């Protein structure tokens, strides 16, 4: 091949050399070989579409009171054609609330998981790579985070910082990075002794370059595994906090709906149409996270498959 021919083929070669793209392709590989992971991805895909389309698709504003033709508030209605899942005790449309709940769930789930992955991976990389006092400091911090009971701490912090969806996310990131950090550190400890990491040093790569260019792509699949589990955890935690009444009162979430239903004795009235749909949605969203995590696990630890 002459040099001019090489120049022509250049874009094709450079595109294929992006290691981050390579790591992202792993997700697709996981979905292709594992039906559960595929199901998880499909669930998230549907939720994403619902969340984006909620303002267009939802028949009513989820916060609006609805009225009957005679001017009465349409409270505690059973499912009917205008209100597919009935209404709440304040006359709000439950179906619209379920649709809008997907927004809160996805925002909380993915932002929190992103934060957990970024923070946990950074902590793991620095602790594992530098070892010594950096490792000591970061891992003792992780120990402290492990020692804090998760839910009570989350409730106290949210109560202290004020009930907002972003505070809920912040609390989860501050408490959930510990698992990711520990696992990534262990992986980095083993990777840093590999010849190719030493080779990077011999070639003159700086510490940061060695960490982020040479080691990070090799721990990224593990980060994704913990990220997908964190999505599930975050959605579940948000629901719990909202159900306990510490959630953001201005955001309709599935946990908020459950709390609303509980407080207005929907269960005593056997209003299944009110509390079952948000409950099912929470379950599906959390399951989807764990399904994807399971797929990653099988890819990372192939020996698990036979058990």
């Amino acid at each position, binding site marked *: *091949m002459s*040099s001019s021919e*090489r*120049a022509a*083929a*250049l874009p094709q*070669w*450079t595109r*294929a*050399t992006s*290691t981050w793209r*390579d*790591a992202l392709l792993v997700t697709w590989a996981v979905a292709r070989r594992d039906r559960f992971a595929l199901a998880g991805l499909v669930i998230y895909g549907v939720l994403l579409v619902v969340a984006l389309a909620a303002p267009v698709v939802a028949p009513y504003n989820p916060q609006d009171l609805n009225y009957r033709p005679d001017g009465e508030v349409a409270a505690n209605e059973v499912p009917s054609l205008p209100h597919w899942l009935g209404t709440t005790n304040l006359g709000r449309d439950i179906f619209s609330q379920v649709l809008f709940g997907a927004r809160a769930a996805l925002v909380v789930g993915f932002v929190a998981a992103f934060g957990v992955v970024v923070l946990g991976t950074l902590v793991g990389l620095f602790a594992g790579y530098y070892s010594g006092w950096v490792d000591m400091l970061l891992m003792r911090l992780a120990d402290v985070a492990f020692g804090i009971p998760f839910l009570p701490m989350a409730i106290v912090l949210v109560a202290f910082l004020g009930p907002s969806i972003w505070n809920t996310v912040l609390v989860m990131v501050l408490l959930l990075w510990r698992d990711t950090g520990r696992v990534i550190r262990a992986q980095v400890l083993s990777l840093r002794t*590999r*010849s*190719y990491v*030493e*080779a*990077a*040093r*011999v*070639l*003159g*790569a700086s510490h940061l*370059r060695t960490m982020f*260019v*040479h080691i990070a*792509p*090799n721990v990224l699949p593990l980060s994704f595994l913990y990220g997908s589990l964190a999505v599930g955890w975050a959605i579940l935690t948000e629901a719990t906090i909202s159900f306990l009444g510490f959630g953001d009162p201005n955001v309709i979430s599935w946990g908020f709906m459950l709390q609303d239903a509980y407080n207005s004795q929907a269960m005593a009235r056997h209003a299944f149409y009110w509390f079952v749909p948000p409950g099912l949605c929470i379950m599906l969203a959390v399951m989807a996270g764990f399904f994807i995590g399971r797929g990653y696990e099988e890819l990372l630890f192939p020996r698990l498959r036979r058990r």
Partner: protein
Amino acid sequence: MSHLLEVTDLRKEYPLQSGLLSAVMGSRRVVHAVNGVSFVLDEGGSLGLAGESGCGKTTTAKLILRLLHPTAGSIRFAGRDVAALDGSDLLSYRRQVQFIFQNPYEALNPRFTILRSLLEPLIIHEIGQSIAERVERVAGALDRVHLNPPETFFLKYPHQLSGGQLQRVVIARALLVDPVLLVADEPVSMLDVSIRAGVLNLMRELSRERKLTTIYISHDLALIRYMCSVTAVMYLGTICEIGPTEEVIEHPRHPYTQALVSAVPDPDPTRPRRPVEIADTVPTPFQLPAGCPFADRCPQVMEVCRHLRPLLLPVDAGVRVACHLYPDSTPRTAEGYGAKMEPH
């Protein structure tokens, strides 16, 4: 006149226990991985480090490459102390000194394509103006190690290549930065016997062509004889004999070298073999004998060997030996205990 590489009384110790108890008790048990190694290497020279596993060959190499920091002693490269280098000086040192790894299967990042791995040194040292120029250089480097046509290897991942091909890629990567000194740690021990000669010939040809200074580390005396003009035999972290390769191998002076040479299989079955038997196994490197490190196993051990450490001093024909059988090695004063060995 100064040497390209000057290693003086190099030491690397690893603490065996770093617990609170041993700190209080004051009993510091350490492993002496490298225990006072000194040698010099001139530009264009080739040095072979021979010795059995665990004798400190690889640690010495990693110290020279500054992958490890020495406990004591110094390494001077082109007159400058390697341990003191930082910033751009260190980067320039990294460019001048390159390493060939023992295991080619591990020396390349499994998530990088070959092209990506080979672009890395050019990116780090900012060699080449454009990506196109860098790709040209990579193609040239692959061509020089006889991986043809180079483009077919660009998008391959390490697991798609054979061991011999991988080691050629590793060699190509090391040469991309135009090094002055090339250190090779058992460059062919992980490769199939049938392709070893090819890789060795390639390395010999390339280092002649570029007037490289080379250090080969191997347990294989035949390899060192083929590749190196000077041979140093290491035992338990020290050099016990160093000199011109032919002299060291044809007329070994140190009893350990004699044993090592006699253990090399000879392809000529009619030639009489005089195996030199040595007893026992290597002493653990944290309980070094007070005298000569080889004393416990030496077939010609004398009383003096048990308590006085011999110095590495010239004997004849340019060979230096650390053995009491050669009177010059015996220090004349009590300072001889672990005394510093002068480089020449």
